[in-house]
């Protein structure tokens, strides 16, 4: 280790950092180390600054480069190529988390900068040169579900040059769309688009359509999934044993298993299945499509919205499309025969964007909208249905006698989705739709290389389904380029330490772990998203990420001077999640929101990556308080990282209580990326609280 040559580069940031922090003194002290060369630059990210580093790397044969400048989340492109493996370059945040957040306390800002520098100089010794891993992948994709989303995904993928296997359980393609009479808002027939797509499917040699087929199992990794598909005869006369079973190798999978209509039979008040005049909106579409006189001959029609939807007992969510479907159907009735009387009974009408025009058009055509939903329907005379409702807008009871009642029932996850969930090990949300991180990665699933298109993710209309198919295709193409580049920041298991307890296998949110022949956990780097939840959970500290190891963290704790602000000031060690808390801390600096210099921070990929042993070690080594800051539970990009961090911290807290130490010495805080004020307030409140508690009894005198 002593043979390492380290270049430490201090950036004055055009005077900004220099104004607050005594860079000269820090550079002098650092230069006293025999293995270190130092350089001070007016602006390190300028071409001159970068050239200087590159020349030094060559001239002095530097093994490591430490850049003491702005936040590591900034200027990543500028410092990406310094003539040395980029994983051997470390950054110290002297601007956002030192000079900018402690502008009025130059002395303490310099002390904190010194502590951060010491920690980074230790960390840098443990860095390893890493290279991107290239893994061969087949240029073929599997699309499960031959509805409008699946067909579009297949065409888009084939258009990008990938071979596509389109699997459909039914003997024909088209899904629910093939039952529809008209699309909204343009009121055009679905057959127009479908026929065009069918001919494109047929004429594209890259697309293989397998109808009456089911996915039975999957193995392998993204880039090389092996999927077994069983194909039945169209009449399903053959048994599963006799049906043809084939194995398909694909690089990525798009799940487009669609939706099913909520069955309104349990809502007995509406008499669905009992009263002939009561139908669902999907029945309406079929009738309108198959019976030429259906729309024109009808006289009085009532639409009842939200049947079973937004109801805790049935579908607790809004299905997004029912309002517009009813408006479309009401409009079709009016356009076919202006004498048709049409009333829509609703809670509220949801018609965003351009769809508002459709709503206005319906009103103009004479469709009546009544705010209020009947709880039951009655049949007073044969052939008619009486609808009685308290109209909330008019403030009185309204009666309507209908020849036809259409129940606008919601969408629920299909049987196929539930089956595939088990086959692919997918995760669903509380409404049984496949989900990963809705806001940031809507097309992703919790399994790498598998994406969703259409209504298997959430209720949506045709245009959004097609849009989601395009998005899923774009995501899938990463795995269909012939080879996949994997960042080397994935975890590595130290089998000498590992006792095969399986905790990492259980806790990995992405099921990236399996067991090798000797029973040790083995990570599939293609499935891993490098969140570090395994590293945080390993009871033996046997797992380390490529970029951040247990060894590095432990080394940093060894050199942390817990008295850098003097004996009476508490020291807080902050583990800040890269996505949120660390950026909020940077923002606090950038916005000039100051907080006490008592906090030194370490950036971690997720709060769930911090091992309880590291937290315990920090307390043992005299840190007064450990602040673990991550996202709110439902915002974590790695799904359960924050929740796991919280649970592990509770264990450490209990241990401290047993040890007659204050459990408040460890703390979790949910800090969102755009809340620097909360970050600053949390640090200040925690520093004050720790001051009240007094010095950590384990701090070395």
């Amino acid at each position: 280790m002593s043979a390492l040559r380290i270049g430490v580069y201090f950036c004055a940031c055009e005077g900004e950092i220099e104004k607050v922090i005594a860079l000269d003194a820090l550079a002098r002290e650092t230069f006293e180390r025999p293995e270190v060369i130092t350089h001070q630059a007016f602006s390190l990210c300028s071409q001159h600054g970068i050239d200087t580093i590159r020349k030094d790397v060559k001239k002095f044969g530097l093994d490591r480069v430490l850049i003491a400048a702005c936040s590591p989340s900034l200027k990543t492109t500028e410092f990406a190529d310094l003539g040395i493996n980029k994983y051997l370059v470390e950054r110290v945040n002297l601007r956002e988390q030192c000079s900018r957040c402690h502008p009025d306390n130059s002395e303490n800002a310099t002390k904190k900068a010194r502590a951060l520098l010491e920690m980074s100089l230790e960390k840098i010794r443990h860095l390893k040169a890493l290279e991107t891993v290239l893994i061969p992948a087949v240029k073929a994709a599997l699309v499960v579900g031959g509805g409008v989303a699946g067909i579009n995904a297949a065409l888009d993928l084939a258009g990008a040059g990938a071979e596509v296997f389109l699997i459909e359980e039914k003997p024909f393609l088209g899904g629910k769309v093939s039952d529809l009479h008209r699309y909204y808002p343009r009121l055009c027939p679905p057959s127009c688009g479908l026929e065009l797509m069918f001919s494109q499917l047929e004429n594209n040699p890259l697309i293989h359509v397998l109808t009456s087929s089911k996915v039975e199992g999957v193995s392998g990794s993204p880039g090389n999934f092996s999927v077994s598909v069983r194909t039945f005869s169209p009449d399903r006369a053959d048994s599963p044993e006799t049906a043809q079973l084939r194995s398909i190798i694909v690089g990525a999978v798009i799940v487009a298993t669609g939706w099913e209509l909520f069955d309104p039979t349990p809502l007995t008040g509406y008499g669905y299945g009992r009263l002939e005049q009561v139908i669902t909106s999907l029945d309406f579409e079929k009738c309108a499509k198959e019976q030429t006189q259906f729309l024109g001959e009808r006289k009085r029609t009532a639409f009842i919205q939200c049947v079973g939807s937004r109801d805790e007992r049935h579908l607790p969510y809004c299905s997004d499309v029912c309002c517009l479907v009813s408006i479309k159907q009401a409009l079709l009735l009016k356009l076919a025969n202006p004498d048709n009387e049409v009333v829509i009974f609703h809670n509220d009408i949801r018609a965003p964007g351009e769809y508002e025009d459709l709503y206005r058009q319906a009103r103009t055509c004479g469709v009546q909208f009544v705010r209020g939903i009947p709880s039951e329907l009655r049949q007073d005379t044969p052939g008619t249905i009486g609808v009685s409702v308290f109209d909330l807008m008019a403030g009185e009871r309204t009666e309507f006698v209908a020849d036809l009642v259409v129940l606008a029932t919601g969408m629920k996850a299909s049987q196929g989705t539930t089956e595939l969930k088990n086959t692919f090990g997918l995760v669903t949300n509380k409404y049984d739709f496949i989900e990963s991180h809705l806001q940031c990665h809507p097309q992703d699933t919790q399994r790498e290389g598998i994406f969703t298109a259409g209504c298997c993710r959430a209720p949506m209309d045709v245009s959004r389904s097609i849009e989601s198919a395009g998005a899923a295709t774009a995501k899938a193409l990463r795995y269909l380029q012939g080879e996949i580049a994997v960042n080397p920041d994935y975890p590595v298991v130290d089998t000498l330490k590992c006792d095969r307890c399986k905790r990492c296998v259980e806790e990995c949110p992405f099921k990236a772990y399996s067991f090798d022949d000797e029973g040790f956990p083995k990570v599939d780097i293609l499935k891993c998203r490098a969140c570090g939840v395994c590293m945080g959970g390993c009871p033996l500290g046997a797992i380390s990420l490529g970029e951040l190891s247990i060894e590095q963290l432990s080394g940093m704790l060894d050199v942390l001077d817990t008295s850098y602000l003097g004996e009476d000031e508490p020291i807080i060690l902050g583990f800040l999640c890269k996505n949120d808390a660390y950026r909020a801390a940077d923002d606090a600096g950038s916005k000039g929101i100051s907080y006490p210099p008592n906090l030194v921070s370490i950036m971690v990929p997720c709060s769930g990556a911090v091992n309880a042993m590291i937290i315990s070690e920090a307390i043992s080594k005299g840190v007064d308080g450990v602040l673990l800051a991550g996202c709110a539970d439902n915002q974590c990009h790695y799904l359960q990282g924050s929740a796991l961090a919280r649970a592990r911290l509770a264990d450490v807290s209990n241990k401290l209580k047993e040890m007659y130490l204050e459990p408040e010495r460890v703390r979790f805080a949910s800090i969102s990326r755009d809340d620097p004020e909360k970050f600053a307030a949390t640090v200040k409140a925690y520093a004050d609280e720790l001051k009240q508690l007094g010095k950590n009894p384990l701090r070395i005198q």
Partner: protein
Amino acid sequence: MTLDPDTGKAYCRSLRDCWDCMSCTKICPKGAIEQRVPYQIGYHGAKLIPMMGTDSITWTCVDIDGKVERFSFRTRNKR
């Protein structure tokens, strides 16, 4: 220590065979195992509580009068 096949949880199958080595107490990630200190070391009320770091261990010793002492040691866990 062994695992109960029904609950999947660990238990001490033979108290009289336990050597009080505290390996299980030290390693339990949930801090769920407490050691009854042998009478030769301390009578009822005395406690020994370990807290593991990656390369250190901190012992908290509580005697029967409630007096607390803490000791931190380096371990050889680091490679």
